[in-house]
């Protein structure tokens, strides 16, 4: 389905916690099949923006749409209505999310982790969900770990399970919130490899990351955020090679 509707469209998105403005006037678009990387110092609002996309956080201002649908609200006669928890849940099931700290369910085995949502939310038959889960786990290189508990896996393996768990819901958009930040350095590569393969398959991805190499190699577009603003965006190779803004220059000099 090659629609002209962008997968994510944000215009003037704002968000504050009390008097603290976390996001100010965030406007960007992510086309279907595109990989967008968001970089920036901690506290820049990049994770908050990501969490707004699947309504884990509520947007206070502007418009945020996913696949043409307003996130968290319904528009009726020019007036916005908050949507019910049930409708919010059904919006989220088409958006996969991978967390910095994996957040696998520790009381369930790897296979049970992956089939939980397809079974309970999508109401798939167990056999079908298991078959699909095994195929996904095979593709992230963990076919032999189906019966292990997350606590017995390395961080890199846990994060790959988390990716398989998100993919099992057949999302049309994948959000990654610093997926490699909690990993030992030697385990980062295996997770990035899985993400690269996913990008190569045409998955639409929004990735908050500190991995500049990954951003340069995989991202179609790079966004640099600071203090709730988008400071600079563009082709990652150009942006990283020749940053225009001083804030980005000083940020890159610290992380590269």
């Amino acid at each position, binding site marked *: 389905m090659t629609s002209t509707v962008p997968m994510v469209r944000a215009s003037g998105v704002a968000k504050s916690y009390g008097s603290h403005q976390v996001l100010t006037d965030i406007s960007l678009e992510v086309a279907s099949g595109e990989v967008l990387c968001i970089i920036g110092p901690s506290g820049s609002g990049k994770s908050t923006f990501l969490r707004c996309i*699947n309504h*884990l956080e509520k947007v206070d201002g502007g418009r945020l749409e996913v696949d043409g649908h307003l996130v968290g609200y319904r528009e009726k006669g020019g007036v916005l209505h908050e949507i019910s*928890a*049930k409708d919010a*849940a*059904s919006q*989220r*099931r*088409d*958006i*996969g*999310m991978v*967390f910095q*700290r994996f*957040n*696998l*369910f*520790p*009381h*369930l*085995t790897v296979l049970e982790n992956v089939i*939980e*949502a*397809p079974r*309970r*939310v*999508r*109401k*798939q038959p167990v056999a*079908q*969900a298991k078959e*699909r889960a095994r*195929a996904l786990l095979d*593709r*992230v*290189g*963990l076919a*032999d770990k189906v019966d292990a*508990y*997350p*606590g*017995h*896996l*390395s961080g890199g393996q846990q994060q790959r399970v988390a990716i398989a*768990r*998100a*993919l099992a*819901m*057949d999302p049309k958009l994948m959000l990654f919130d610093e997926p490699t930040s909690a990993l030992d350095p*030697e*385990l980062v590569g*295996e997770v990035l*490899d*899985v993400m*690269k*393969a*996913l990008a*190569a*398959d045409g*998955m639409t991805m929004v990735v908050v990351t500190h991995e500049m190499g990954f951003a340069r190699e995989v991202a179609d577009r790079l966004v640099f955020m600071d203090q709730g603003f988008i400071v600079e965006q563009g082709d990652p190779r150009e942006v990283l090679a020749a940053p225009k803004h001083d804030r980005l220059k000083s940020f890159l000099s610290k992380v590269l």
Partner: protein
Amino acid sequence: MSDMSRGPAAQSAPGHDPIKAVPLRHPWRNVIGVVLVIFLAAFVYDAAVNRTAYDWPAVGKYLFDRRISEAAFITLQLTVYSMIGAIVLGIVLAVMRLSPNPIFKSIAWVYIWIFRGTPVYVQLVFWGLLSTIYPTLDIGLPFLPPIAQLPTDQALNTFWIAVIGLALNEAAYMSEIVRAGILSVDKGQEEAATALGMNWALTMRRIVIPQAMRIIIPPTGNEVISMLKTTSLVTAVPFTLDLYTRSRDISAETFNPIPLLIVASLWYLATTSVLMVGQYYLEKRFARGIDRVTVKKGAKLPQGDAPTVTGLAGAKTGQNDGPKENR
């Protein structure tokens, strides 16, 4: 690698002799141990020979008295039924208290306020007077003639009134234990489930509460044992077939209370011991996935295998497998 051979051979290699040292001695432990044993022996001898008030022959006679063992069984039933009721209601109250719905929150708060704030003995007396306050139990709509009507003392005998009274009181305590358990589960768990499109109730039932159980079980074991002993208050209902009331009744006939108190205590202690065994197995059951220290010897190190990513093409083609739901 091969030169620096590790493994069993390394133990006898030069420079790697096992340490032979004189273990640290603890002479005072032995002294105190011996003194305590002497005191205990003296107490037991004195109790067995000099203190006739214990009346050990009577203890032996009543220990397996039919009335006592039946009363012990009834006490166990009171405990089990009221704890089942308390745990179920406690979970419901805890979930209500933590729910985003302000009405549920207030109901749970008021319930806990009342049932935790008044003595269980007083509550049991109240429940015993239920049939005085409400002679009939009516089923139907308010202000309309009842669809069904039942005399209260026929619908509920004193046993079930005791169970209800104990369960409703205990539920207030259980709900706080459950709430502590739920709050102990990492917030990221709820978030991950939410991000997968699971609703709040499903998240609680499938993800949060099973993990909270690990925290909930030890204090619940405490509550079960506490409940076993609280059943001795059901005489307030008045229900008289429990272990304590029954042994008091027997001693009222024989004018010999001490041996029957010992008999009752031994039965309470025996029952508690059995319940503790049950708790041990429950704890093991809900520790699944958490026992990360007990990795089997010789198990492969997790870092060993690199991912064999062969393109996630199938991840996409398989996309139409499941029932698609777009709303």
